[in-house]
């Protein structure tokens, strides 16, 4: 029976999607509705985020078993809303100074978040697919949101082509699984894994589904789109895609593959382990020779997908809570890093190379300090959240007997020290001239909040680790 109760159980989804619709209407009716639209969007994302932080409900199902609610779904919803909220604050001036249609931008962010929430709450592969496409479609548009920008258009088109390509595989995988199991219910598929593990159609279905997810999380060798799209898309959108988008894909990966499936089907787990290793090494190695910050962060995002995948391989409680903690930390620090890049970027999309950051600590000490903090956290240096994030997933892998993978992870992150700290060195130990960016109160508030949260989570990681431990 679908009714009011179902709606109430899915509060975050409800808040975000309704406000998305309302903002859409406001934007098309009022001429100067931008302010109202912005605050409505921001408030609804904040509300949905706080709901997840303070009102995590009992686990249950809604809409005739199509959605799971409470617990895990609520936590993920809070995470996505947070990513959306930070992005909104960082974007208002950035987008406003580059296009005239800010209202649409807010709508797209809201719908993308709604899609993400749908993914994390899916109890059925069809719903999962629905959420994934909802999110992806918004991303395709967002990537090319600056319509006059050549790079933006290229990014959008490339993303769309390859995304559609990947969606094909994903859908095909779902079809195979339906053929093998006779249902698209995730729970049912997982519980039949034990007796279907040698069935070819079932395995092909799983592989294709996995490939669809691996594309979304940007794992090697399905990562090729990432540098081009991340570089070309508006910087704030890149920040959103790399955090919210990745988090959503991982939340779906956790839902289907870890911890229940990976531990049952050996070959799948092995494949994920190898891909994790290749992703960590490849992402970090390729980031080394980048001269553009956005491309560097793109490859770094690939590398982080690799670290996160070790948590999937671990397929145990520690790995899974580690992934959720990691996603929270990564959302904060990567949104922060892209936020700084966005603030410093010139209107034409310039000033994003490493050299443009030399001597930044003199002209913009606050931004340089924040960027340094985010870089340290991305490197995984205590006491910042990035350290405990890595620690959590790696210790999960060690506990599951994948010590070699953890060792590769640590060595790979050793490489990352070079390119993250290179930026810090440039900012603090070389000379350079910079136009001082105009202060943007909203964006600064978002950055400071993100930095504070990165530090807080680094000092008190148990706040999230203890909470998420109850989900698995």
């Amino acid at each position, binding site marked *: 029976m679908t009714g009011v109760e179902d709606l109430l159980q899915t509060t975050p989804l409800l808040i975000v999607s309704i406000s998305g619709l309302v903002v859409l209407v406001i934007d098309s009716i009022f001429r100067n509705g931008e302010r109202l639209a912005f605050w409505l969007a921001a408030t609804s994302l904040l509300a949905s985020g706080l709901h997840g932080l303070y009102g995590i409900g009992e686990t249950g199902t809604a809409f005739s078993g199509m959605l799971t609610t409470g617990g895990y779904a609520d936590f993920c919803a809070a995470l996505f809303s947070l990513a959306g909220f930070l992005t909104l604050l960082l974007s208002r001036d950035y987008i406003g100074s580059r296009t005239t249609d800010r209202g649409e931008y807010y709508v797209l962010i809201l719908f993308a978040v709604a899609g993400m929430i749908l993914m994390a709450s899916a109890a059925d592969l069809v719903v999962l697919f629905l959420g994934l496409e909802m999110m992806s479609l918004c991303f395709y548009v967002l990537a090319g949101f600056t319509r006059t920008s050549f790079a933006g258009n290229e990014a959008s*088109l*490339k993303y769309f082509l390859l995304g559609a390509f990947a969606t094909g595989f994903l859908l095909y995988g779902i079809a195979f699984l339906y053929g093998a199991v006779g249902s698209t219910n995730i729970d049912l598929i997982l519980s039949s894994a034990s007796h279907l593990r040698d069935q070819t159609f079932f395995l*092909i279905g799983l*592989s*294709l589904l996995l490939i669809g997810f691996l594309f979304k999380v940007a794992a090697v060798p399905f990562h090729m*789109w990432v540098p081009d799209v991340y570089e070309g898309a508006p910087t704030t959108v890149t920040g959103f895609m790399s955090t919210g988008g990745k988090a959503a894909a991982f939340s779906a990966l956790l839902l289907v593959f870890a911890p229940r499936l990976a531990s049952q089907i050996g*070959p799948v787990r*092995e*494949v994920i382990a190898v891909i994790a290793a290749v992703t960590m090494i490849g992402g970090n190695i390729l980031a080394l020779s980048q001269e553009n910050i956005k491309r560097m962060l793109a490859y770094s995002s690939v590398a982080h997908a690799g670290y996160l995948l070790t948590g999937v391989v671990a397929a145990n409680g520690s790995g899974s809570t580690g992934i959720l903690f990691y996603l929270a930390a990564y959302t904060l620090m990567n949104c922060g890093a892209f936020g700084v890049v966005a603030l410093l970027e010139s209107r034409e999309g310039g000033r994003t190379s490493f050299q443009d950051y030399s001597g930044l600590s003199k002209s913009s000490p606050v931004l340089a300090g924040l960027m340094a903090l985010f870089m340290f956290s991305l490197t995984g240096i205590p006491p910042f959240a990035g350290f405990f994030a890595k620690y959590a997933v790696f210790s999960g892998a060690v506990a599951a007997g994948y010590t070699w993978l953890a060792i590769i992870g640590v060595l790979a992150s050793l*490489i990352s020290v070079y390119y993250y700290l290179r930026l810090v060195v440039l900012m603090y130990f070389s000379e350079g001239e910079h136009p001082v960016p105009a202060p943007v109160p909203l964006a600064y508030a978002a950055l400071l909040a993100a930095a504070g949260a990165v530090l807080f989570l680094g000092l008190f990681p148990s706040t999230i680790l203890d909470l998420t431990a109850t989900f698995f």
Partner: protein
Amino acid sequence: MMTTQLVAMAVFLPLAGFLINGLAGRKLKSELLIGAIGSGTIGLSFVIALILFTGMLGTPVADRTTIVTLFPWIEAGALSTSFAYQIDQLSILMMLIVTGVGFLIHIYSIGYMHGDPSFWRFFAYLNLFIFAMLNLILADNFLLMFLGWEGVGLCSYLLIGFWYDRRFEKGSTGDAAKKAFIVNRIGDVGFLIAMFLIFTTFGSLDFVSVFPQAAAFPVGHEVMTWITLALFLGATGKSAQIPLFVWLPDAMAGPTPVSALIHAATMVTAGVYMVARCSILFALAPTTMMIVAVIGAATALMAATVGLVQNDIKKVLAYSTVSQLGYMFLALGVGAFAAGLFHVMTHAFFKALLFLGAGSVIHAMHEEQDIQKMGGLKSALPVTGRTFLIGAIAIAGIPPLSGFFSKDEILWKTFSGGYWPLWIIGFVGAGLTAFYMFRLYALTFEGTKRWEGEKHPHESPLTMTIPLIVLAVLSVVGGLIGIPESLGGGNTIEHFLAPVFGPAELAMRLHATHGGIEYLLMISSVLMAAAGITLAWKWYRTASNQPVRFAERFAGLYRVLLNKWFVDEMYETAVIRPTVRGSEKLLWKGIDVHVIDWTVNRLGTFAQWVSRTVRVVQTGVTQNYAFVFVAGVLLIIGWILSA
């Protein structure tokens, strides 16, 4: 409940003082305000210590130990440590000494540091020191104690090098500061190793957990010996004992109040406190106890002999401190823990007094420290002169001043414990102490003036003389709480501390003995002191050529003593130069440059090369991307199906 807040306040008030003066001190223009903040916080801590102390006196002996847990600190695997303080007889005694003497020295510093451009920085460091010291003595576990231990070391370093632009002997004050820090690091290694051993042996670093467990070990157990030896190495560093005493004389490069507070009254006694705190561990390791006693006695004698011939007023006092610390370790080594602590207390009074007096003299003489260029200062500095004399009598061991009771208690316990060779050393040392102290007093305050040029020394301001007077009173009466039973006293301090040292004394099967011989020893040590005083008085009160003739007759010995037994030179040749040369030639230019750096750089360039080579794949052509994608798909499906 109430205790928790009080203890937290007592510890964190000095930290607050440090933060206020350290962060805003430069902008606070008024010296009075800075000094008031600096001294006030310590004064309040002292008041709290008094409150806690009277509260403790009002509770039955069995309930006098209180553990105050502020917050959990480190939880990692089996290790669980809290920021927690243990208030018991031992720690409250130390707390009273540290905050009480510390308060007086803070007050004194307001006058002494007047006009210094870094006035605020001085008080900030001083407050930070008290904070660290309180953590050291109040900690209820080894880790927090180590935090305080390192904290006081840091403050000592900062304060020795406080006048970083001044020269000191052959180098700068920075050299002296570094020497103190590095020598202390050697001792700290011992402390760390001891902590590791304690943790692996007992699975905890909390005193309440470690000590009862240790009591179950048999006497002479190997682990105990290693733990206590490592701890004692730490103590020799912090408390300037052989072989790590060399930093303390150089620590005199710091301002004189620092010498009084850190390098005489409080920090250097941290090693004594630590050994006393771990008395049960040491009691179970007779070998270590023997080493402690021998090192203590040897240090007492060696430093006293050096003190005989030094001409720098602070140097004499520095060696005197090393020597007196030796007495304290002698006491600990023979199992007389309470006597050792008693001497810590009386020594804090009279040595702080002597150092502050020396500071007052140096102040009046415009930074002159050579006693050859002083003399006759008695009339110009009446308060300083008289209080200094009281301090000298106290340390010389003339009854009924405080030094007599504490030193005699140590000597008696040494003798009655059967360590008569050590007693002889201590006995001789007592004579030397009396001699060098009165030599110092006579050369400084008696006789005629020996300085050149226009100097008109006059008495220091009240902020400096009042602490001197208070400390002089304490030096006189401080011994009264430890009058031995044989002299009709109650030996209050020993009974007060007895519960803390009970387990250790039980393990060592010690029992108090008294007898006629105790009086004999007392009388002979008083006579010894009197002889030292008389000789010094005869030789130095008026210009006499006796000392010179004596020095000429024993020219070799004189040279050895004047050059401090050539210990610094020995370290220089045997340790420092080989280490520096080895580090430079082999470790730096050899291994570091050619092996480590080379490897790291090659790895770095290799990674860069791989990166540049592989990035070619990223063509920007979407079809290529899709091609790689499909290759990945085929590999994955192939793998999963073939497995």
